[in-house]
């Protein structure tokens, strides 16, 4: 177990290092890189340029710059946003919280819905309801996130009358926490539905195929032969055994959910890290873009690591592999 954890920690660390190196190459090394353009940016004051020069160590050799960059990044020092004129890490922390407020409930909801409909679908294999569920999830899986969001916006403007941008109404004095929360919920409804639906499709299919796979195993056939009721086989044997594949495949789906969140946040102007990327692209705010990229990629890698470790705890076989 210990060596398994160590192995996972090592490969996670390698991935994180790869992400940081990739960012260094993209933002610093290649021709026309943003850092060299940065010093000609008219939005920066003289003191800020001097500060950046010192921080980045730009007058030092390249390998030294790389280590200064890594050291700074691990300390949480990601530079100063051109546009907001504030340290990038402060902006990121605030935005990350907003992203998680949206991402966690919708991913959980998508997994839950996926388990229910995926089970029904596998249970009624090749019957009408299975075909309806699988084709619905295929279509949902295919729908471009921002287009689905746009459809909901159009629907909301004409019928639902729900807010379509931001997290709260501007300039409102809330009477109590409850009012504030209600405003948040009404703003969250549409992005929440969008994100749930786009991740729901793949979860359903994952769970369905895991269940179908396992139902052909010998021990399942044996249980039928022993005369257990179908209900009992499904609940006690199939669902229990399918939890591991679901866990491992959900880890992969985290990346999909995050990608969905970036596009959903953009369409609904939800002030999370995803929308931050869009704003950074529009404003050519490279430190902020780099910071958002690092935060998103590292979070996904860490989420994968947690899933891997959980898998190791639950399934002794993978530890020895």
């Amino acid at each position, binding site marked *: 177990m210990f060596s398994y954890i160590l192995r996972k920690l090592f490969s996670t660390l390698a*991935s994180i290092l790869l992400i940081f190196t990739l960012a260094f190459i993209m933002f610093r090394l290649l021709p026309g890189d943003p850092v060299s353009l940065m010093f000609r940016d008219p939005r920066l004051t003289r003191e800020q340029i001097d500060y950046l020069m010192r921080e980045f160590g730009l007058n030092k050799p390249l390998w030294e710059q790389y280590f200064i960059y890594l050291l700074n990044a691990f300390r949480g020092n990601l530079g100063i946003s051109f546009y907001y004129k504030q340290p990038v890490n402060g902006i990121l922390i605030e935005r990350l919280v907003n992203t998680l407020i949206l991402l966690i409930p919708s991913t959980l909801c998508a997994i839950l819905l996926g388990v229910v409909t995926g089970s029904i679908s596998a249970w009624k294999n090749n019957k009408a309801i299975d075909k309806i569920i699988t084709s619905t999830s295929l279509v949902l899986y295919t729908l471009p996130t921002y*287009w689905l969001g746009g459809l909901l*916006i159009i629907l909301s403007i004409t019928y639902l009358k729900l807010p379509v941008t931001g997290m709260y109404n501007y300039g409102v004095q809330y009477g109590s926490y409850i009012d504030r929360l209600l405003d948040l919920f009404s703003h969250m409804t549409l992005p929440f539905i969008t994100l749930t639906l786009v991740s729901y499709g793949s979860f359903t299919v994952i769970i369905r195929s895991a269940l179908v796979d396992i139902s052909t195993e010998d021990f399942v056939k044996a249980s039928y032969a022993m005369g257990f009721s179908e209900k009992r086989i499904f609940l006690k044997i199939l669902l229990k055994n399918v939890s591991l594949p679901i866990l491992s495949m959900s880890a992969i789906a985290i990346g999909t959910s995050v990608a969905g969140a970036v596009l959903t946040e953009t369409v609904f102007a939800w002030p999370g890290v995803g929308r931050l*990327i869009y704003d950074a*692209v529009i404003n*050519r705010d490279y430190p902020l873009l780099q910071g958002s990229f690092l935060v998103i990629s590292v979070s*996904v890698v860490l989420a994968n690591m947690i899933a891997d470790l959980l898998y190791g705890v639950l399934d002794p076989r993978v530890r020895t592999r």
Partner: protein
Amino acid sequence: MRKANNSYYKSIAYIIKGNSDMKAGLAITALFVIFALTAPYIAPYGVYDTDTSSILKPPSIKHLLGTDEMGRDLLSLNLYALKSTLLVGLLSAILASIIGLLMGIISGYYNGLIDWVISRVVDFLIAIPAIVLMIVMGSIFASGILSVILIIALLSWAPIARVIRSIVLSVKELPFVQAAKALGASDLRIIRKHIFPSVIPMTLALTILSIPNAIFSYAALVFMGVGSVEELNLGTILYYAYVSGSLASGKWWYFIPPGFLLVMLSLALMMTGRALERELNPRLKGEQHEL
């Protein structure tokens, strides 16, 4: 040689004939290609024809899909947009497949360090959300359509490499490959004569399956304002519908058709690709409606 090829085509024709999913998918795809190629002839208006008397007008007899904020006919714009959407999807998918094929073969055939390195890169590329990396790379480097194609290809070959690698791993152990090795055939010859032919059909299926991904990535990139938004494709129509505020004011005829076309095209390609994949992979064959 010619005879062998002939029977190969015959077997492809046979696969298509007996497979309704593939027939439907190919038919819809063909329809899209025809529309894309004949757009200049069948579109009622040109791309630059502006009609100042009808700006952001809903669908009518004169403009079947309404007009945009410059008074251009949206039906014509959508038709013209198909060509570059298809082209970018196809080119990125082909490029990604070539990279994936090479990486998969190298990684599967040669064990050791190179396999380890490629596999770690593949794991990494599959785990991180590719669209985020595409947006970042695109906003730094993308100046035109070619660089966007390159970026999409560079970030989407990993799943292809993974499948190809697993096929190569099993083919490598087959008796006839072992025999060729024992007879002293060089690595290059074994790869060319034995490994390559056995992975090509699956590569074809994976290429078809990568087209919708590439098309979506491209549309998403353009929608995020990355790459060139001057170039007319389905993604730019969505982008302008969003940034011009037409979406926020409920101009559905501007926003719904391009997305609908994207979804139809992708579903058709996915049906074709999945059906082909099922034919090639007997393990999947029993399963209906697998994503």
